């Protein structure tokens, strides 16, 4: 009898647990769908004023005369993010490899908490750092070196600040992933006469590839939407940047700078909602793309 009762109550508890983990999962999905619906609904007035292709690909941003071309903002976002990505990916992977494979235990002991600390610093602090150091550096040193005039508030400054913000996350996760590669696998390669670098390149990184890609996705999902630090150094001029020394105006900055202030202009409200929707779509598209890459890597059976 006792045993029978035990079984029933365990089954019951199992059922409760199943429901308990299901509810939050549903909740998250509902929030996601609700966001899309709200954005679409609030943005709908803008679709009446202009066709969607004009909204996306026109560069003329004149809210007063009702012209909302989002192309400068879309390209600003893409420029800054791609630049930051280009800086972050090699630096992060190399540092993670160094820390995980080469560094002495003591170096690791110092570097690891520092990186974790870096990941926890609020973005406004990074923005200040950008204004105080990176912007003048670009204005006085890098831009003259490249033979151009720049205020320093530009795509390059945005990309650099963003890269600095993203790489602690990417390093930290990549490091864990590399450390998780079984020692036996390294030994297999070394015992075959591979050098340390060959072992890293052909075996460790290969094995860690999916995890590193996941780390990059995580880092850049943050980067796309990162507002504060980028907004502070990127110039915020609604033009399509022609070079990294031109100012840009990424979508998050547009929303943060204008929401609640320009509401006297008709359709501005829905324009910003549309901007949010674009950002949302970009991030989702990036994630889907990354997923596809991940699945392909998995299929290769690494």
């Amino acid at each position, binding site marked *: 009898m006792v045993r029978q009762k035990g079984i029933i109550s365990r089954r019951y508890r199992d059922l409760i647990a199943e429901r308990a983990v299901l509810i939050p999962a549903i909740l998250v999905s509902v929030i996601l769908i609700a966001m899309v619906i709200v954005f679409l609904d609030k943005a709908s007035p803008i679709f009446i004023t202009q066709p969607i292709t004009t909204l996306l690909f026109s560069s003329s941003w004149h809210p007063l005369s009702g012209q909302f071309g989002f192309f400068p903002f879309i390209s600003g976002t893409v420029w800054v993010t791609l630049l930051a990505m280009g800086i972050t990916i090699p630096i992060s992977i190399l540092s993670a490899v160094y820390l995980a494979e080469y560094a002495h235990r003591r170096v690791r002991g110092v570097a690891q908490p520092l990186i974790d600390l870096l990941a926890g610093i609020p973005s406004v602090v990074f923005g200040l750092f950008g204004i105080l150091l990176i912007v003048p550096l670009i204005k006085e040193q890098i831009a003259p070196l490249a033979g151009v005039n720049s205020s320093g508030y530009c795509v390059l400054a945005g990309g650099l600040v963003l890269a600095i913000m993203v790489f602690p996350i990417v390093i930290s996760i990549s490091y864990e992933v590399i450390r998780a590669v*079984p020692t*036996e*696998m390294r*030994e*297999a*390669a*070394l*015992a*075959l*006469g*591979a*050098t340390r670098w*060959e072992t890293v390149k*052909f*075996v460790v990184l*290969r*094995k860690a590839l999916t995890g590193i890609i996941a780390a990059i996705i995580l880092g850049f999902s943050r980067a796309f939407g990162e507002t504060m630090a980028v907004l502070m150094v990127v110039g915020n001029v609604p033009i399509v940047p022609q070079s990294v020394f031109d100012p840009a105006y990424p979508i998050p900055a547009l929303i943060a700078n204008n929401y609640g202030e320009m509401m006297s202009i008709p359709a501005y409200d829905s324009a910003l909602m549309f901007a949010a929707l674009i950002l949302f779509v970009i991030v989702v598209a990036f994630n889907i793309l990354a997923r596809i890459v991940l699945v392909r890597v998995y299929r*290769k*059976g*690494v």
Partner: protein
Amino acid sequence: MDATESVAPEIRVRDLHVILEKREILKGISVEIPKNRITAIIGPSGCGKSTLLRCINRMIDLVEGASVTGEVLIGNVDALSPGIELTELRRRVGMISQTPNPLPMSIFDNIAFGPRIHGERDSKTLDATVSRCLKTVGLWNEVHERLYDPAAKLSIGQQQRLCLARALAMEPEVLLCDEITSALDPISAKHIESELLAIKNEYTIIFVTHILRQARRIADHVIFLYLGELVESGPAAEIFSSPKDPRTKEYLEGVFG
């Protein structure tokens, strides 16, 4: 098996000491290992069998804080000399470890890995090497239709044979086998044993095992280690039938171990 005596030694270990964190793992081993024979290193756990093995291809270098002194002559090259080219040493001395450790790549690439890093680029040569090595370990018929599948998809027993084939692909002179059947089912273990027997005339095989019956089945020569010391070594028939040292006798009788 008396022929063992007449064979020139391939490896001469002289006064080998290994100290790890103030503990002496090997206490001055001197022993000769005959060429193209199977030499079994036996002894209870923790006696230094694997450590001795790892000195021969210098994988001991990976152990932080290990200090190694003495000589390990392979032919006339001292594996322990600081100036030695490790990549070349490890090409000459292949190793198969206890648990199968296929590289994260296809079956083909696993076997081609060694030749490739040592400079072989010709795809025809690589094809030939891969099929030759897979045939040697009896894996060809099982896998030749899926050479480009991930090696991790093979069964554990197949993976271990793949690791053997991978070591053979570098055309080594010496094969170090560290309890290579201990993670396998009996049938796979049998496979491996018979493959080692089949190739022993071309390779100097050093085989660490704690299974005495296995040593009896395949060894030509036996080295008995106990607590970091060499107790006895010699032709397998002699050691198993009339051990000289009482400790060997007791170990063989199962008094300890």
